[in-house]
Each structure stands twice: as structure tokens, then as C-alpha cells.
């Protein structure tokens, strides 16, 4: 049922108040009257009215002054100004001060009905807008973060609690766990959602390139700088900047970044003009930043500046109960994108997936399902379609260290963490394998 619109009539003439009161009551509105602006303002403080219909000429505070005060109380309130003596100046002034409309007394009954109908429409639109915004806040972009496991639900709760604030966030987690999706969900549920989310993959850029990428550059700043170029911090104005692989930035860039985070201002490479930008920072890393701080590899002051909130995205092996749901999601996703009929997965294949350690986490599972759909029979994914015994190409692994770590982990998992057998398979001695396990902090899956 539609909400009953409430109207406050403010006029020093009793006959006008009574006439309007009777007219609106017959239309089914909730109506209250006030004979002066002061009383009306105190009524507005204790009660909320959707529409205020106010005379411009009243003893004491006039309608225009009251309009300004109402607007300072509630910016979106709808005030209609009435007058018996219309002048262009007063009408323009009323509209400039935020009046919804301006009418000359006496008005045609039809004009009055139209006026209130339009104002009611405006109110409905504003309310609808609020409801839609709230709906978007609770739903947007979280659909990609799949999982009903406690570990994943905890992540979702953390996203929800941190999204509305401006706090810097560090998202930690192994490679392929979906850290960027978490960053997107935070941005999409934050008040900054209508502004850009700018992502920078710090690990993929050299120091000088990263500097130019983040701060922008002026024409002629370096060879090839033929245009002025906005930096990512500038592009993220009013929005969010997502710095992926933050642990890879150089010591010099750490200092630069700290300065920018503290002052929210910077100078383009080759420029001299201070540029300010209002951005929120979200970082991600698969390294242990605290250990890096202890070892002197990462600045402590920058770490504390960034690490206001830490969200740890669990590896897939810690939420194996989410695997069936993820598998179903990826099957659906790739069947649609490849224009294939809906497919399912054999129970045995799904069981093997649940037992697999997935060192490449969700990205590895996704790649595996994509491949299975390509090579499969088009109806059901079976064990033979899944490369569970072989190394799955993980496109996210970029360093040799990561590659070595993943490979050792897979071999250990394959031989149930039997060090001798695993070392033999890897063609290294047991001491070397122990050293590698220690180096990469490898642990058996729970």
C-alpha cells in the first residue's frame, strides 16, 4: 500500500489554511497547519512532512527565509512557495533557494492537484531511489564470491563491515583465491561505488613505469611521453584504487606511496603542480607483509598505513565444502560463454576434485572446469576430462619461486607427504626438499 503523503500548510491567513486543509483532507493526505514560520520549523523538527506549502509573506520570518532553514534541516524536502503578489524576482529567488515550485494565489483547482501530484511523484522517486540503492548495497558484485563455508561467510561479513568506511584494506591470501573479487565487492558496496575502481598490478611493472602509471606524467617528462597523462591515483578520484601485489614495490616506491597516502596529493612525473585526489586504497598480496617488515623488506610505517583492516581470503583447501557450488557455477559460466548445452559433473569426478589440494586455488579449479568443458563429451564431466594427475597450467604464476612452490606442493600431496618418495620423484635429496618446504612454508592440506 502506498504511504500516506503528509503536507504542512504554513500561512498566516486562517481562511487559506482551512481551505487548503479541507481540500487536501478530501484527497486523503495527512495535513497539519501552522500560522507562522517559527512554529512550522519546530513542527518540522519533531515530525517529518513530505511537502511544505508555505506563504511567502508572513509576519516575522517570511517564506523565503523559512525555505532556507528547511533546506538546511533536510536537503531533499519539498517546499512549494505560495504568494498573492507574484514577482519574477521572488519566484526566481525561491527556485534558486531550492523551492520545488512557486504558485500564485488563488490557484486553479486543477493546478493545485497537478502540483501535489508532481510533488508526490518526486517523493516516490526519491524513496524508490533509496530502496534501489540499499538493494544494490546488499547485492552488488557479491555473487562472484561463491561459498557457504564458514571461512567464506567470514570474508563476506568482513566485506560488509568494512565497505561503508574509508579505511585502507589489505587483502591477503594465496594466489588464485579471489583477492581482486574481494576488492571489487568492497568497492561495489561502498559509498564510492558510482566512481571508478582503478586496478594496478604492481608486480607487472618496473619501478619507473609504476611511478608514471600511478602518478601520471607531463608531456616530455621522459622519452616517449608525448602527451600529458593522468595517473591512476588521479583517475581514482572519489573512487577506489586497488594495488595488487603490493609486496613487490621497490623501497623508493614505498616512500612515494606513503607520502601520497598521507597527503592525498602528488605531482605528475615531470610536472610541478600539486594534484589532490580523494581515493580509498585497497591492496592485495600473497606474501606475509609482517614478516617482510621484520626482515626490513617492507616499510613498517607504510604497512601500518595500509593495514588498517586485513581480510584474509582462505585457500580452497580450507573450504572444500564450497567446491560443488563453485564447480556448478563454473560449468554454468563456461557452458553459456561457449554456447554449449547445460552440463553436469559425475559424482566420482566431483569427489576427486574435493580431494585435490588445488595449490592454484579457485583459479586452478576454474581452469580445470573450462578445460573439461572443451575436451569433454558435452553432457557430463568425467574423471578423464580432469587433469588431476597432471600439472594444471596456472597462468597467474609468474615467478620461478611460485612455480617451484606449487610443483613441490603438488608432488607432496600426490605422495601423501612422504618426504622420501616425494624427494625421489623430484630428483632431489631429502635435505633439499626439507629446505624447500621450510622456505615456502608448505604444510599438508587440512
Amino acid at each position, binding site marked *: 500500500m502506498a504511504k500516506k503523503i503528509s503536507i504542512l500548510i504554513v500561512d498566516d491567513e486562517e481562511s487559506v489554511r482551512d481551505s487548503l486543509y*479541507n481540500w487536501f483532507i478530501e484527497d486523503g493526505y495527512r495535513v497539519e497547519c501552522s500560522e507562522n514560520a517559527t512554529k512550522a520549523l519546530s513542527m518540522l523538527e519533531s515530525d517529518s512532512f513530505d511537502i511544505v506549502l508555505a506563504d511567502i509573506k508572513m509576519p516575522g520570518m517570511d517564506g523565503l527565509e523559512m525555505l532556507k532553514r528547511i533546506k538546511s534541516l533536510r536537503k531533499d524536502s519539498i517546499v512549494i512557495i505560495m504568494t498573492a503578489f507574484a514577482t519574477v524576482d521572488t519566484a526566481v529567488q525561491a527556485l534558486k533557494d531550492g523551492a520545488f515550485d512557486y504558485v500564485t494565489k488563488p490557484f486553479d483547482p486543477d493546478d493545485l492537484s497537478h502540483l501535489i501530484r508532481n510533488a508526490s511523484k518526486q517523493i516516490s522517486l526519491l524513496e524508490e531511489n533509496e530502496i534501489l540503492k540499499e538493494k544494490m548495497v546488499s547485492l552488488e558484485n557479491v555473487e562472484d564470491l561463491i561459498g557457504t563455508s564458514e571461512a567464506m561467510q567470514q570474508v563476506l561479513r568482513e566485506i560488509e563491515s568494512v565497505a561503508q568506511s574509508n579505511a585502507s584494506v589489505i587483502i591477503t591470501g594465496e594466489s588464485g583465491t579471489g583477492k581482486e573479487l574481494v576488492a571489487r565487492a568492497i568497492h561495489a558496496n561502498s559509498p564510492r561505488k558510482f566512481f571508478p575502481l582503478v586496478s594496478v598490478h604492481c608486480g607487472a611493472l618496473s619501478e619507473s613505469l609504476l611511478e608514471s602509471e600511478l602518478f601520471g606524467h607531463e608531456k616530455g617528462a621522459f622519452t616517449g611521453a608525448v602527451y600529458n597523462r593522468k595517473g591512476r591515483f588521479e583517475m581514482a578520484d572519489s573512487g577506489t584504487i586497488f594495488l595488487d601485489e603490493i609486496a613487490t614495490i621497490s623501497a623508493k616506491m614505498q616512500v612515494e606511496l606513503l607520502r601520497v597516502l598521507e597527503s592525498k596529493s602528488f605531482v605528475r612525473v615531470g610536472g610541478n603542480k600539486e594534484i589532490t585526489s580523494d581515493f580509498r586504497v585497497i591492496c592485495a598480496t600473497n606474501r606475509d607483509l609482517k614478516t617482510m617488515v621484520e626482515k626490513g623488506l617492507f616499510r613498517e610505517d607504510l604497512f601500518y598505513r595500509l593495514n588498517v583492516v586485513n581480510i584474509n581470503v582462505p585457500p580452497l583447501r580450507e573450504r572444500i565444502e564450497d567446491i560443488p557450488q563453485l564447480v556448478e557455477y563454473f560449468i554454468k559460466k563456461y557452458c553459456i560463454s561457449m554456447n554449449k548445452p547445460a552440463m553436469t559433473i559425475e559424482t566420482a569426478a566431483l569427489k576427486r576434485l574435493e580431494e585435490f589440494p588445488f595449490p592454484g586455488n579457485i583459479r586452478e579449479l576454474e581452469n580445470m572446469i573450462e578445460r573439461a568443458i572443451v575436451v569433454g563429451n558435452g553432457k557430463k564431466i568425467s574423471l578423464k576430462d580432469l587433469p588431476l594427475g597432471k600439472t594444471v597450467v596456472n597462468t597467474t604464476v609468474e615467478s620461478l619461486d611460485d612455480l617451484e612452490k606449487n610443483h613441490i606442493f603438488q608432488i607432496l600431496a600426490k605422495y601423501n607427504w612422504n618426504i622420501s618418495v616425494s624427494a625421489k620423484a623430484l630428483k632431489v635429496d631429502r635435505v633439499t626438499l626439507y629446505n624447500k618446504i621450510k622456505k615456502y612454508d608448505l604444510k599438508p592440506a587440512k
Partner: protein
Amino acid sequence: MNLENITLISFGYFEKGLLEIICDDVEREFSVPVKIREGYMALSVYYDASRKQYNGNGLLQEIESRFATETTKTLGLFNVDLFIPILTYIFGQAFLNGNSGIASIYRLSNERYGLKKDQTVFIDRIRKEVIHELGHTFGLIHCTNPTCVMRSSTYVEDIDQKEHMLCTKCKGMLATKPQNEGLN
């Protein structure tokens, strides 16, 4: 409250038999007997020379104080142009959930708009206005149903668009109002 009747009082010159024609329809809508009589009032008191119209608020107050009773719904019918201070004109008005109302036939004839006289249309408009204002005295507010007699009308064309009857929803509301117990 035991409602005894609806009283339609005409003030000023009305064609003979004009109100008798609409009696049955009014009676049927509210299931209350309808009485018709002539009344006298010094209308000049309510005349506004600057607007050349009669103040509807004053007329309604006088109907309420001089003619209305607790056991009747009284509607004063006038053949003069009515206004209220804030509006350029009104067809009628009534106390919501009250005992009295007013209506004017002044703006209901085709001739007023330079059109050919049509007595059927004229009577139909009076019928609708009378039922509409009486509806307010029974506690009914304006209805959004385009054919319901309680639909708000600001032009005669609006009056012509609607029926002279209450819609199902308004009839239901009429029956459920505590003061209307026993109606319908």
C-alpha cells in the same frame, strides 16, 4: 448515531423538479431517505466583489450552524459561483465525516462554456456532484478509480468522465465506517 435522512436544501432559483429527478439515485447510493426543501440565506454576506464570487467557506459554515443536525446529512445547493480563498473556484465542498456540505450548479451547465444546452448532461452533473459531496460527509476521500463518483473533478469534463455511483472499494469503505453502521 441513527441517521434519519439526507436533506438537500436549495438556495435561490432552481428549475422546478430539478432535485426530485436525482433523489432516487442519491437514496440508492447511501441507502438513506432523501428529503428536499427550499432554504433562505442572505447570500450577499458571502459575496466577494473583487472576485465576483461567493465564499464557499462562509456558506458551508452557515449550512453547518443553521441547517445541519446530528441525525441528518445536509447539503446546501446554490446557483452562484463559489470560491475558497486559495482556489479560483469550487464545484462544492463538505466536512469530511461531518454533517454538512455545499454544491453549486453554476458551473455545471453547458451554456456556461458556450456550448449547446443539454439538460440530461446538466442533471447528470448535478447528480454526481451531490453524491460526491455527500460521500465526503460519510467519510469518503477522493478515489483513484476513474469511474467512481468520488474521483476528484476540477473541470466539468472530469465530472462527465465518471459514473454517478460509488465504486466497489468506496462502497466497502462506506459500509465499514463506524458512523455508517446500518447503511447498505
